[in-house]
């Protein structure tokens, strides 16, 4: 045990490890907050769809050799999020089909572009990194960390400020609209926040695993907790703990960070599932 702590202390000396931990905590906090709403609104898959869009946008950004990829990726993802979340009722192509279409489309086009205009010798390595985030969390630049801190603080503040509105809209959008809540504006807000979280989370776990961060903590918390508030708080705590555990294990065992974090989330889900089952049996 002391050796373990020593080893961790040794790693903690490196700035890139500290950056990784900061980003992991912030991103997992934000994604779990919105995750509760998305899961309950039956939009669990939106995270996946958007992350593929972000992947496509990233491919375009690297083809254009932009110095700061986020400047392109973020607006594109926000635009698509708004399209998917806010036109759901009126369009002819319904929610899940639209998400499926956009997500595989963006994935294919992204990969295609990366291949045609390849900028490095190791395309499959690049693609793998973007999809599974194998090392990107450990290669963050200081600016990226700052950007992440700013964006997550904004997301967190907006969520706290509009918590009750978000609850009202999640539980019953029609009722909220009838009683005078501007549901359109809040849906736009939720869609934009989701897009920001997805883009941030891509660094952490990669494009393919993003939805795990959104979905698992919320589902785990819902097994056991019974009010919206407790579910939200629990999801946030679960998510942050799993990410920390995931990073520590990944560093010690040399496993890929993203998938280790998701594995921790899966374990947590089964734990909470069992607690939920045993509680309902006991009661």
């Amino acid at each position, binding site marked *: 045990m002391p050796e373990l702590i020593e080893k961790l202390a040794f790693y903690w000396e490196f700035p890139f490890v500290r950056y990784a931990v900061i980003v992991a905590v912030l991103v997992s906090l934000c994604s779990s907050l919105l995750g509760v709403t998305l899961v309950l609104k039956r939009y669990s898959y939106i995270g996946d769809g958007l992350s593929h869009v972000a992947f496509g946008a990233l491919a375009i950004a690297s083809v254009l050799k932009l110095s700061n990829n986020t400047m392109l990726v973020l607006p594109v993802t926000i635009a698509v999020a708004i399209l998917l979340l806010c036109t759901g009722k009126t369009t002819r192509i319904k929610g899940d089909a639209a998400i499926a279409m956009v997500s595989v489309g963006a994935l294919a086009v992204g990969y295609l572009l990366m291949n045609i205009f390849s900028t490095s010798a190791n395309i499959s390595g690049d693609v793998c990194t973007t999809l599974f985030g194998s090392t990107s969390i450990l290669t963050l630049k200081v600016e990226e960390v700052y950007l992440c801190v700013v964006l997550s603080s904004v997301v967190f503040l907006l969520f706290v400020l509009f918590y009750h509105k978000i609850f009202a809209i999640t539980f019953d959008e029609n009722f909220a609209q009838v*009683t005078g809540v501007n549901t359109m504006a809040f849906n736009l807000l939720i869609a934009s926040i989701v897009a920001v979280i997805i883009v941030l989370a891509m660094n952490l776990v990669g494009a393919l695993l993003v939805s795990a961060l959104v979905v698992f903590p919320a589902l785990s918390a819902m097994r056991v907790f*019974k009010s*919206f508030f407790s579910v939200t708080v629990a999801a946030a705590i679960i998510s942050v703990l799993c990410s920390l555990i995931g990073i520590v294990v990944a560093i010690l065992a040399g496993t890929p960070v993203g998938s280790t974090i998701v594995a921790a989330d899966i374990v947590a889900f089964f734990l909470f599932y069992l607690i939920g089952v045993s509680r309902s049996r006991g009661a």
Partner: protein
Amino acid sequence: MNELIPLITCRQLTLGYGNKDIVRDLDYDVNVGDYLCIIGRNGSGKTTFLRGISGLLSPKSGSIELREGLKRSEIGLLPQMTIVQKDFPASVEEIVLSAFQGKHGLLPFYGRARRERAMECMALTRTESLRKSCFRELSGGQKQRVLLARALCAAERLLLLDEPVTGLDPESAETMYRVIKDLHKNGMTVVMVTHDVDAALDDATRVMNFDQISVKGK
């Protein structure tokens, strides 16, 4: 009855989805103090009309006007329950309080007056003992009463009800009707879509029958 003061006026109202008109050229007034029951077969346009006057569905043509200074934030709605709500992890109190969001501005917390009003509404619907319970673990009738409590919190002048007794046992249904009747006595304007014609004729001051309307009002 004294003279009629219209609270909502519909003129030449056409409502529908896509190319299909469900309500056509309807002229109708909901008056202050009405207990209006809307009856009719499935698909006759009852719920569509309710969605129209609640503002969820914009008219294809014609107009719906809120009169007498009625604001959206003074309307309460008891909608039909959705699948999402049936297993929603939220406490009864959270749900009832969420009724105030329309009048609430951007404050991130509820004041004492709001909390007291919520308690009153829960008392009226006999749900105060469920305050801390989880919505998804309640029975159908309890859920419906919680949603009524929420509607009451929002309703200051107009209460819209979409089949409020669906899936309730006779006893719960009777409680529901009694609560609604009391509210009406205390000055609330009530518009209710229902299949339960007998009950409708017992309490209602007006009945709108979408089977015969072939869409002429009044």
